[in-house]
């Protein structure tokens, strides 16, 4: 297997998270009605970090939630493996400004599933999307409102977001994939 | 004049106490001479080299189902007797549970006519005890005896009414016919599907208790002693039955008995696990009445067969079509297609040292013949023996041959066996009926 290329180190991630926090508050003109919802699993960690960053400069912490979209994936028959859903915990989202947070934006299918899932719980006034990494190769008309870092990748590259809480260190790496035949 | 000479086989003839290397000469369908080098004395003959093989009288089966007339999709007289030949049998007694049942001269004669036309080996019909096997009134035993039946039986259905059974036994004495009973009390069996015990509990299937058999064995022995009749107990399957029969015979009651190869070797675990324990099988091919029992029953049956308390190994060959078996266990027809695996399966006991080969041969030949007195019948003198003058029915056996049971290669239409894919040690190399080869494998070497 080829060596992974480091595209964002711990410091880079920290700065990206802080910047995203500022941009969210700026776009929303404050913290009122803001809800940060992370997509399981690393999106949840990122949402918590962003909430902490906002709290540091706004002195108010927006409510956060966790969303599992496993059951809303529409590709069960093709995925060849089942994933165990993780818990979904949501604060009130009715009429709120929900910021979906995920680690990597790729095909867009996860985000579509996340929006479907959200709708089962209530009707937010606005849904925004924030991701740490946008690696391209969208299959649906979905784009992120705010991006930590754009990373050009090939289709079969593997983008790994490692976060201290789950992986023991902070890093974003790209493992080159096989060239498409 | 046609002559068949079989050279250098180990001739086992239990009736004469013979067990040794010898030649055997058959002239015009009857045994002519038996002895060392006798074959060399014959100038012109068809010759078979039996070196390394056992030569024994053709097997006699007291209990087969040929299904014709009425159930030709399961078996015919032609296919059933072809299976018999492959299994080493030269005489089979055909149970009367056909449609129509064999409860009249006409029905018996039609079977004999069909056998004349298409049977590969000898077919001796058994008549019903009661009309239509309905258990209500006696079938005309005199008429049936006149037509040539060798015994009376209602087969799968025991005569449940004790008074009727008593009269059946009493009446049979006038014609010297054994009354063969499938001993299981239907009121204790109810809708039982297999032996009542831990395997049935494991599978959630309703049980047929051993006592359902034993109560009828006890009752019928008492009735036989009351009437002085000849009671034959079909397919004994429990240790309790063995004890009852043993005691009855010690008292001098005229009670004979048979046991099947499957009841001697397979236990109720066969239904659930098929020998592997890997997964539950609910194997309908191991569904049989009476059911396969427990190890302790097997032990008692083997001992009784060894001691002669049980006279005969009989197959209860019960062929069924796939549609009778590839269905829910409760709906599946009971029975095992047994003619072609009988010798190989029974040989397990010999290889395990629990039965001698001559004893097994006895229980497959002269044992059943004498149990029913078949050799006292006109034209059947010497049946089950290789005495000079006896019928030229014999079998060549390879006790050490390993072979794999492949039901698709059965001559029987019934492929219902729990032994599919298993290896058996002990095969039938050739079968000679009336001096003619009716079955032979590549192992049979013509000289």
């Amino acid at each position, binding site marked *: 297997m080829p060596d992974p290329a480091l595209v964002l180190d711990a410091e880079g991630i920290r700065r990206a998270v802080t910047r995203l926090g500022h941009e969210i508050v700026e776009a929303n003109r404050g913290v009122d009605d803001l809800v940060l919802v992370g997509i399981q699993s690393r999106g949840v960690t990122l949402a918590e970090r962003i909430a902490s960053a906002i709290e540091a400069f706004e002195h108010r912490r927006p409510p956060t939630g966790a969303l599992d979209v496993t059951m809303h994936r529409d590709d069960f028959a093709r995925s060849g493996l089942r994933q165990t859903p993780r818990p979904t915990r949501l604060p009130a989202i009715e009429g709120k400004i929900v910021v979906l947070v995920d680690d990597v934006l790729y*095909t867009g299918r996860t985000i579509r599933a996340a929006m479907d899932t959200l709708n089962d719980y209530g009707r937010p006034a606005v849904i925004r999307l924030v991701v740490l990494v946008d690696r391209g190769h969208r299959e649906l008309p979905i784009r992120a409102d705010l991006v930590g870092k754009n990373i050009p990748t090939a289709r079969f590259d593997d983008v790994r977001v490692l976060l201290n809480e789950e992986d023991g260190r902070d890093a974003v790496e790209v493992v080159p994939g096989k060239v498409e035949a | 004049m046609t002559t068949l000479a079989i050279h250098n086989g180990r001739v086992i003839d239990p009736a004469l106490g013979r067990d040794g290397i010898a030649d055997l000469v058959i002239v015009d369908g009857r045994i002519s001479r038996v002895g060392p080098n006798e074959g060399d004395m014959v100038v012109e003959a068809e010759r078979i080299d039996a070196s390394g093989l056992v030569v024994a009288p053709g097997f006699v089966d007291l209990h087969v189902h040929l299904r014709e007339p009425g159930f030709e999709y399961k078996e015919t007289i032609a296919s059933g007797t072809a299976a018999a030949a492959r299994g080493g049998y030269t005489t089979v007694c055909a149970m009367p549970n056909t449609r129509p049942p064999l409860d009249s001269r006409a029905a018996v004669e039609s079977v004999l006519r069909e056998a004349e036309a298409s049977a590969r080996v000898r077919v001796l019909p058994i008549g019903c005890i009661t009309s239509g096997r309905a258990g209500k009134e006696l079938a005309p035993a005199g008429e049936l005896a006149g037509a040539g039946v060798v015994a009376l039986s209602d087969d799968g259905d025991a005569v449940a009414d004790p008074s009727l059974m008593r009269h059946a036994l009493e009446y049979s004495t006038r014609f010297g016919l054994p009354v063969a009973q499938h001993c299981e009390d239907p009121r204790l069996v109810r809708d039982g599907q297999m032996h009542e015990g831990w395997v049935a509990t494991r599978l959630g299937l309703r049980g047929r208790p051993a006592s359902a058999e034993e109560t009828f064995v006890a009752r019928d022995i008492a009735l036989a002693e009351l009437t002085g009749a000849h009671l034959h107990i079909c397919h004994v399957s429990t240790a309790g039955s063995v004890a009852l029969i043993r005691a009855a015979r010690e008292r001098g009651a005229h009670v004979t008995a048979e046991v099947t190869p499957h009841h001697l070797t397979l236990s109720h675990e066969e239904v659930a696990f098929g020998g592997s324990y890997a997964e539950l*099988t609910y194997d309908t091919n191991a569904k049989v009445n009476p059911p396969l029992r427990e190890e302790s029953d097997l032990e008692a049956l083997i001992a009784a067969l060894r001691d002669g308390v049980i006279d005969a190994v009989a197959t209860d060959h019960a062929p069924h079509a796939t549609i009778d078996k590839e269905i829910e266990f409760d709906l599946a027809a009971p029975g095992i297609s047994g003619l072609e695996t009988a010798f190989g399966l029974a040989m397990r006991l010999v290889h395990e040292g629990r039965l001698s080969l001559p004893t097994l041969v006895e229980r497959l030949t002269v044992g059943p013949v004498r149990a029913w007195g078949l050799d006292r019948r006109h034209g059947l003198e010497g049946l089950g023996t290789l005495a000079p003058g006896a019928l030229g029915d014999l079998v060549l056996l390879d006790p050490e041959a390993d072979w794999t049971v492949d039901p698709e290669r059965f001559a029987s239409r019934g492929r219902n066996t729990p032994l599919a894919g298993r290896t058996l040690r002990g095969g039938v190399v050739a079968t000679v009926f009336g001096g003619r080869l009716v079955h032979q494998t590549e192992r049979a070497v013509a000289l």
Partner: protein
Amino acid sequence: MTTEITSRVAGSRRHNARTSESPRTDAWNHTDILDLDDFTREEIDTVLELADRMREILDRRIARVPALRGFTVVNLFYEPSTRTRASFELAGKVLGADVLSLSASTSSVQKGESLIDTVRTMRAMRADAIVIRHAMAGAPYLAAKHTDASIINAGDGAHAHPTQALLDLYTMRRHVGELAGKRVVMVGDIAHSRVARSDLWGLAAVGAEVVVCGPPTLLPRGLRAGDRPAHAESALPPVTIETDADRAIAGADVVMALRLQSERQEGGLLPSLHEYAQHYQVTAERLARAQPNHLLMHPGPKNEGIEISGAVAKGSHSIIEEQVTNGVAVRMALLYLLSGGKELPGEAAPAREEARR
């Protein structure tokens, strides 16, 4: 032999730290659910954890997700059933599967419409999972042998009812947590109860101490380990057998009353329902001997006044109604697990990476 029941070691759940995906459902090795006799502790845990997520979905404002879109579930019921059938229908629908329910009478089977034909026909119509309820033990095993659709046993004769047993385990665990060492007592018609049989396997796998209690005529033969040959000792789950209900219930953490069919009296197995109730009805007096925080369960449908008193059935220890809700969640979990790894005809398996994100 079926010795795995004792030799299975619960391995730790493997969380895949290499990538950003959810943990895979590693502890799952079934294409059919025929009974719990071949379930490991770990597999049971997988189902019960997943059932928790499924309850979460059931509690949503709109309880419907597309996880099983394109997956077809056929309910093939040869025996009348209200709750099990409805439970499977609901489970399938909440997950977005197509659900088709057929009532086939056993008499039509006897007329020659074979189970195998029916199952093969359903598969030809693209059924992915076939849920079978049948009056005859072993029928789902027969079906599983003749189709590659997943077969779920929704009750076969007196043999097994694995989904009921899983929902029983799930319900117990929600209330008492770890079940190892807990005393679970089943009272009633053990001999004819498929629920009891499957519960025995499930409870054995999680290490509970199980007592079955009923009149001698309603206890199956060979259940007592000493009644089996040594080599078959582990062929049935370990269990203590009692015929005295007071003694059985003493110290129980969970008491489960089993349905008594009135046929048992007609079949001569019981003198009268009245006498049965006197000796075996689960009543407040008897439950006073159980642990103070005991749970009361019943697989339903119950005959109040016969095997269970109306007062305790509605009492504070009763979790009978919760069993029903949990039934849907557990069956959702099972359908979800069975749907994994199956490809629809004509669709090629894509690279894993694409499936993941």
